[in-house]
């Protein structure tokens, strides 16, 4: 194992983890504020990719695809929360089962609208190159993913930790009822968080569509990863989602590279270990 191997694989793991962060941070936020275990979150990722793909086809603009994907899926999320999930407020199991129903429907709708062919989202020329550093070669697009995730993470952190809106969200996480009792429109906050979570997943879907592609089945393929991240990091914790994403990205990558025979075991076993020691995850609170 050369130093080059370690550097490149670490880079691969980081960039994959960055993509996972986009996916998992929304899942974690939604759980934190609303206690909803959203099994349709992978669907947001997939649908976001498809919407982005359609937009690139029409407009040729990757930026437009990012925006349109995030907005469209945010709207879907709003519809789901407002019209369906809210009615089951407080019923964990009912909500879980309902999100499964949605996941199935989204899967079929995607097939109906976009067909079953796999696609990749065409990238703008600027993101296609390779950055070389000595003998090391880093794909520009993977650097881009890391940059986007870093920016999103920083923005989320600033909003959550430094703004009044963020304080309102955390207040709702701490004590939902009392948050209403000090005048916070908790239903609106919830809706906003749900929309934001869906939009982040969709953003991940569009960005992922540039190198993982957009295809049927992507929803349930990424979902376990998102859950592992959230479980390891701790439900409802943004720092947890950050650390969890990187950990999972790296574990997955090195597991595949070093022990291909046990690659999923190397991912899930440490997770089980973490849970055994800290049932609420690294950053979770009971």
């Amino acid at each position, binding site marked *: 194992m050369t130093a080059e191997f370690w550097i490149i694989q670490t880079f691969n793991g980081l960039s994959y983890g960055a993509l996972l962060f986009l996916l998992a941070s929304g899942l974690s936020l939604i759980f934190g504020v609303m*206690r909803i*275990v959203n099994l349709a979150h992978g669907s947001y990722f997939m649908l976001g990719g498809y919407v982005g793909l359609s937009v690139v086809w029409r407009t040729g603009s990757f930026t437009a695809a990012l925006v349109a994907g995030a907005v469209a899926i945010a709207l879907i999320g709003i519809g789901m929360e407002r019209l369906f999930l809210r009615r089951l407020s407080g019923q964990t199991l009912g909500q879980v089962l309902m999100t499964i129903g949605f996941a199935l429907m989204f899967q079929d709708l995607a097939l109906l609208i976009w067909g079953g062919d796999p696609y990749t989202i065409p990238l703008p020329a600027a993101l296609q190159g390779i950055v070389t550093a000595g003998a090391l070669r880093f794909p520009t697009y993977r650097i881009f993913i890391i940059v986007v995730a870093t920016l999103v993470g920083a923005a989320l952190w600033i909003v959550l930790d430094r703004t009044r809106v963020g304080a309102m969200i955390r207040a709702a996480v701490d004590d939902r009822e009392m948050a209403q009792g000090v005048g916070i429109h908790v239903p609106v906050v919830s809706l906003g968080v749900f929309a934001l979570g869906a939009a982040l997943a969709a953003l991940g879907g569009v960005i992922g569509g540039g190198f993982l592609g957009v295809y049927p089945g992507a929803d349930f393929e990424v979902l376990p990863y998102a859950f*592992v991240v959230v479980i390891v990091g701790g439900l409802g914790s943004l720092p947890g989602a950050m650390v969890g994403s990187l950990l999972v990205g790296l574990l997955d990558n090195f597991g595949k590279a070093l022990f291909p025979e046990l690659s999923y075991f190397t991912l899930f076993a440490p997770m089980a270990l973490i849970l055994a020691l800290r049932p609420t995850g690294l950053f979770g609170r009971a």
Partner: protein
Amino acid sequence: MSSGLAAPAPTLDRKVVAGFAALTLAGVLAPALPAYPLTLLTQAAIVAVLAMSLDILLGYTGLPSLGHAAYFGIAAYTVAILATERQMGLAGCLVAALLLATATAALFGVLAIRATGTYFLMITLALGMVVWGLAFRWVSMTKGDNGIAGVPRPGLGLGWSLAEPLPFFYFALLAAALAWAAMGVLVRSPFGLGLKGIRESESRMRALGYNVWLHKYLAFVISGFFAGFAGVLWAYYNGFVGPADVQLVTSVETLLMAALGGPGTLAGSALGAVAIVFLKNFVSVYTKRWLLILGAVYIGVILWAPRGVLGAFTREPRGAR
């Protein structure tokens, strides 16, 4: 002691009666059934055992597990590997598979029982994925994504072959009925009442002197045992075991079955299992858009009959969280 203290004669629950009627009817009608409905009925009987095993946790103890396919799958894999590579017979396969499934549940239980509510959901999901990861990637043992095909139906040495659909149906029906009876006694036993108590109030159970952890743990292990039992039947029924049998979607579907039928009623879980097996396999005959319909049905049931189909007919609300 005051008067009239004799224990009431064990009255048979109406659901038990209905269940017996359904089993008997299925048994009587089976020879008249066309082969495919018979096949589906066989499948439903097996999956019903799985759903009921989950209901011990979900409906009776109030622990929603999202990793139940693990024990089912481990048992199925054990049978498949032993039957194809070691030509082991029914008894050997059964014992080995049940031991392994139960042992896995015993191990996972230690990790999972500490958590409650959503955390329990998530931890079982994670543990389920550990097993899936092994099934998928431990290629030398499980043949990875190829799965293990050609699991022979067991010979019973009774002169008739289980390879034919009808004998196998009776075999599966009998096995399912036995499992149902065993679980039925369990949930009506003092231990089973303890589970219901835990579902309703853990703190009170502790105050009464129950070791709540032990009760939950035993329920977890027993539930894994019966899931394993279903897995044994499944391996023989399908003749094929693959990673799809242990994946998240299978666990989710099992949870749906238990929940749709009304958690806390074994017969309800069985009904949920039957309903979903038939729904999946018949809607898909008539339309390519069956997933859409299935999803819509799930959502509809949860919205309008949140306690499940059977639960909607029973008087008492259930403590499913």
